[in-house]
Every structure is written in structure tokens, then in C-alpha cells.
């Protein structure tokens, strides 16, 4: 029917002269774009199925392939852009809610790129991290304002439980189910090697991965999938997920076709049944209710594990964080609106929530103003793209950051943003066995460890440049930041001066 025709988004450019017809592209495309024509002895492609995941391009041994955005355009219209029109065509055709994956691709202001970092000159000399000691170790958890000692100098105060990290970077929550077993294994092994933590997400913890428990944060979300006593005690900390940056205010939905035998066992739900996480926790309607859950979890783990409460960055985030800090939580995790997801309604992902940079500045300031900043650590996530973003986040007041999308990129993700189809050609966001095996955890773990240790080196370089030799001295040190191209209001929220001031 012509009325529902949408021209394919991409074109497959195959340089015939270079193509040797090895058919690797055909074998590697789960979307079945490529095929071999015996009669004409050539490769064919059906670009309507292409999602631009770059798998074929990456594997083509003669670099004969490239993928290009189609130049087929509707008549130019600055208001009714092509994408807006096509989304209307799709919804008129199906009557359905539009689904998307990964973080929003919309061109919202990115404040990391409007913040510049300071460096020392002459009076306060820079430090060379290759020659002098440099500390990036962080402890996450409630900090005491005062320590008491007995007459022999022995510590009397009881230190609340902490997570010890070699660097201020953790892997954010991605559930087993939304990502594959091999992706989880890669994260677990890399976190162990790096001395940091990965996060189970809400899908429970696969039996094989209990051995990485010391570097695991176990999550309890509104669906309570896979939660039991051993699970809670398996990790270094417990995270209560109240919200997610990509989809604040709504729950999750893992389709039944992704619930295969192993996922079913881990989540403790039947095979093939949709896993629906409600939007709210049905037992939490107030800070007091949240406190009850926090202490239930602490009780179940003998008060030995710090409890994280994860929220999405929304308009009232500072007030909410203040409530959480008073609820008994040890750590607050805040997820910005650019954060990734395995699937979210497009409208929610692209329009709900606020940038993490603003949320972080507001929360840190509010907790300081209320003299409760030491009661909690702050972890932020939602599109941390480089070590520079990490340094800026820490200078704005974060104790550590979560990286999700960056970690997936290290594992091979090319951000084609079609995780919700379950046909990830890179073996990450899929449960199809032939695709899952495409991610060898030996390679995955190594690449993740490479990425994070490279970032850690860069963080040390930047700290050294500022004349700072400990991450603690950078935390909340907003004097090290300057804004560029920001309004007075934005600078006020960030609590930083404009460049030149």
C-alpha cells in the first residue's frame, strides 16, 4: 500500500570492484539485509531491513561496504521535519506507541561541553602523575562528620559500610535479559580486574556470576525480579531502582520472547512470560516507605552493605535527593535524561527528565546547604562520554560516575538504537544464542578494562594539571570549573563562574 510506504533510511554502498563475494556480510546480518545471487554471482542487499549497526562494514575483509543515510527527502520544511512526518506515518499505520532504544539522539544542550577545566601555571605547580603518587581511589557510603577515639588512639566510631573503588567509574545497571550473558560476563570480569563495580540491573544475578560478587552491585527494582536472600548478600552493595534517566516515571517491559530458560531461572519467572516492572514500587509512596525498604534490605544483609537509591533526574531532583539522604540510604545514584535503555517509549525518552549536569549541581548544593552532604555519596550517570566528563562531574560534586553506553560501545555497540528488536548483531542486546556468542567475554572484558584504565590515566593527567593529587580534593571543587557560553542563570545553578571571570 503506497500510503504506508516509508523509504528505507539507509543505503548500502557496495563497491562491486572490491567485493570478493565471501558472504561474510550475509552470514553476519541478523536483519537479513545481504544475500548472494547465484545467477549473477553477486551480492544483493535489501536496505529496508538495515539498521546501520555497522557489523557488515566492520567484518568485510576488503572494506567493500559502507552505509549511508538515504538522500531521499520529503519537501524541505523546517517545522515538519522528515523524522516527525515518518513517525506520524508509522503511528497512523499501527496505532502503537513508538519505541526506541539507547539514549536520546535529540540535540539538547550538553553542559559538559560548556564547562572548561582549570590548570595550574607558575604559582601552584602541576603534578606529573607518572612521577608522583596520584590517588583515584574512592569510598562510597555514609561518612561520619566526627571520629571518636579512646585514650589509646583506637577508633571508637563505627564506620558505616562502604564500597571501595580503585577509580571513580562504575558500570551502570544493565539487566541480564536486556543484555546478554556474555555482555554481563564481560562487565563482571572487567569490574573485578579494575577494582570497581558493575551492576546487575533488575534481572537478578546469573549463578555463574556469583563469584564476582565483591565487584557487583545487586539491584532491587519495582518488579523485584530475581531478588532473594543469597542475591542480596552476593554483592558489594544493594541498589534500589526508583527511576531510570531514559524513562522517568515509567516501568519496564522485557518481552516474553527474551525470557528463555536461563533468564527465566535468574529472574524467577516462567519461560516466555513478559517481565513487567511497574512504574512505582507498589510498597513505596513516601520517603518513609522508602526508608522501610532500605532497612528491610539492611536487615536482610546484617547492615553490612551500603544501600544505593537510584532516581532519574527530574525537575524536583534536589528535594527528592534531600529526602533520600534522610531516609537512611548510603548512596544516591542520579541518572540523567540522556541515559541509555534497552527500550523506552520514544516520547518519554526524548522529552522527560533533565540533564544530569544540572541535576548534579542542584543536588550537591542542596545537600551541602542542608548540611547532609556527608550522609550520602552521589553517583551520577546518563551519558558520561569521556574522562573529561568524569572530571567535570566530580568537580561539580559527584563521588563517582556510572557508565553504561560508553561500556557498551567498548563491547562493540555502534548505537544503532534498535536494542528493542532483540537482534543485536554485536551479541549485546540479544538472547539469541547464535548472536550472543558473537561477544567473546575474553575480548569484551579486555576492552572494558582498557577503556576504563585509559580514562583513569586521563583523569590523573587532568588532576595533575590542576595541581591536585587526590580525587577527594577534586570533589565538589567548583573553582576548578568555568562555564563557556552559558547564561547567568545556568552559571548560578552550576555555581561556577564564566570563563574569563
Amino acid at each position: 500500500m503506497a500510503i504506508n510506504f516509508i523509504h528505507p533510511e539507509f543505503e548500502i554502498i557496495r563497491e562491486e570492484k572490491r567485493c570478493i563475494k565471501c558472504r561474510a556480510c550475509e552470514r553476519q546480518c541478523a536483519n537479513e539485509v545481504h544475500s548472494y545471487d547465484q545467477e549473477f554471482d553477486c551480492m544483493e542487499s535489501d536496505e529496508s531491513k538495515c539498521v546501520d549497526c555497522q557489523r557488515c562494514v566492520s567484518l568485510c575483509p576488503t572494506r567493500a561496504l559502507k552505509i549511508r543515510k538515504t538522500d531521499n527527502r520529503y519537501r524541505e520544511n523546517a517545522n515538519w521535519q522528515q523524522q516527525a512526518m515518518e513517525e506520524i506515518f508509522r503511528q497512523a499505520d499501527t496505532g502503537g506507541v513508538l519505541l526506541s532504544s539507547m539514549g536520546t539522539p535529540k540535540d539538547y544542550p550538553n553542559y559538559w561541553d560548556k564547562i572548561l577545566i582549570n590548570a595550574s601555571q607558575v604559582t601552584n605547580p602541576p603534578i606529573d602523575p607518572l612521577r608522583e603518587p596520584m590517588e583515584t581511589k574512592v569510598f562510597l557510603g555514609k561518612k561520619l562528620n566526627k571520629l571518636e577515639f579512646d585514650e589509646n588512639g583506637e577508633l571508637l566510631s563505627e564506620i558505616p559500610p562502604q564500597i571501595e573503588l580503585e577509580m571513580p567509574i562504575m558500570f551502570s545497571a544493565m539487566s541480564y535479559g536486556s543484555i546478554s550473558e556474555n555482555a554481563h560476563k564481560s562487565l563482571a570480569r572487567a569490574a573485578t580486574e579494575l577494582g570497581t563495580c558493575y551492576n546487575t540491573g533488575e534481572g537478578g544475578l546469573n549463578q555463574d556470576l556469583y563469584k564476582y560478587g565483591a565487584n557487583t552491585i545487586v539491584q532491587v527494582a519495582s518488579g523485584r525480579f530475581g531478588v532473594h536472600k543469597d542475591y542480596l548478600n552476593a554483592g558489594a552493595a544493594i541498589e534500589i531502582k526508583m527511576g531510570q534517566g531514559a524513562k522517568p516515571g515509567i516501568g519496564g517491559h522485557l518481552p516474553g520472547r527474551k525470557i528463555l530458560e536461563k533468564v527465566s531461572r535468574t529472574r524467577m519467572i516462567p519461560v516466555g512470560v513478559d517481565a513487567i516492572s511497574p512504574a512505582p514500587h507498589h510498597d513505596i509512596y513516601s520517603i518513609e516507605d522508602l526508608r522501610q525498604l532500605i532497612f528491610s534490605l539492611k536487615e536482610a544483609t546484617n547492615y553490612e552493605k551500603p544501600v544505593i537509591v537510584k532516581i532519574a533526574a527530574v525537575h524536583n531532583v534536589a528535594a527528592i535527593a534531600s529526602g533520600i539522604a534522610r531516609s537512611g540510604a548510603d548512596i544516591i545514584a542520579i541518572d540523567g535524561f540522556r541515559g541509555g535503555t534497552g527500550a523506552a517509549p520514544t516520547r518519554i525518552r526524548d522529552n522527560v527528565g533533565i540533564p544530569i549536569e544540572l541535576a548534579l549541581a542542584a543536588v550537591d548544593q542542596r545537600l551541602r546547604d542542608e548540611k547532609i552532604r556527608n550522609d550520602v555519596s552521589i553517583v551520577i550517570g546518563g551519558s558520561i562520554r569521556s574522562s573529561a566528563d568524569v572530571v567535570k562531574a566530580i568537580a561539580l560534586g559527584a563521588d563517582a560516575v556510572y557508565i553504561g553506553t560508553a561500556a557498551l560501545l567498548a563491547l562493540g555497540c555502534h548505537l544503532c538504537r534498535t536494542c528493542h528488536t532483540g537482534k543485536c548483531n554485536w551479541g549485546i542486546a540479544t538472547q539469541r544464542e547464535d548472536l550472543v556468542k558473537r561477544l567473546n567475554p575474553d575480548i569484551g572484558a579486555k576492552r572494558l578494562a582498557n577503556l576504563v584504565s585509559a580514562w583513569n590515566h586521563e583523569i590523573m593527567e587532568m588532576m595533575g594539571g590542576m595541581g591536585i593529587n587526590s580525587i577527594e580534593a577534586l570533589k565538589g571543587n567548583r573553582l576548578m570549573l568555568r562555564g563557556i557560553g552559558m547564561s547567568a542563570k545556568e552559571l548560578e545553578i552550576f555555581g561556577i563562574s564564566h570563563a574569563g571571570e
Partner: protein
Amino acid sequence: MKRVYVNEEWCLGCHLCEIQCAFANSGEADMVKAFNNSEQKPLARITVEDGENDIHFAVSCRHCETPYCVKGCITGALTVNENGIVQIDDTRCVGCRTCILMCPYGCLTVGHNKTLLKCELCVENLGGEPSCVRRCPNNAIVFEDRDGGLL
């Protein structure tokens, strides 16, 4: 000795090892030329077997300690060199295929000129380290010295 080992758990069945093997042994410096500029496409000495339930694994010469193929060779074209690599001298091979019949692993094949074609661990070409190992996209093929020989 170091041998090529295949871990079917990670083999994707992309068959790129075959392409890389054929290219490495083609004598051409450019893969496109090797495949598109010759009368006959270069042949691989490694073969990926595709089984049911998405099982794939590549098969190439095991370089056995006491190779049946060498025992069976009627012209002495097959020999074991000082490094333990089973090599073929195709000037002496008469194409009788006795070695193919004797190989318990089904690793041997015949080239365009009807003489034996087999993996020589890339010692005889530009590759150096076996090309299939170096170019495998998922580390499914490895080049390792493991304890205990075969056969």
C-alpha cells in the same frame, strides 16, 4: 609445539578464516586482486564446518606428532620439519590422495593443480603468524602451545 586450536563456543561461522587463509597463501599483496583478478579463486586450507544448532568450527591440519598422512605418502612429498610442522612439497606430490584418506581429522584438501593443499601454519607465506588466528574476529581460533600432543 604451537598449534592452531579452535574453540567452537566462539566460532561465529563467518568463514572469514577461510578467506584470510586463501588470501595469505595466494601470494598476492591485495585481497581483492587475489580473489577478483585471477582465473581461479584461491583456495583455503582451513574449512569451517557448519553444524546444526549454530555449531561452527574451523578445521585445519593438526600437525600430529606421528602423522598418518606422512606415513601414507607414497612419494615422500609430505614430511615433518624440524619444528614439527607437517609440510608438503608439491613438486613431489602426484595427487594420489592417500593422505586425504588417512587423515583422521579430514583436514586435507586438493588444490587447483590437483596436488595436496594443507595448512603449514603460514610459515611458507607472508603471514608469519597463522592468518586465520590473527584475523579471527572473535578469538575463536588461537595459536597456542598446549601440553600433550595429538595422536
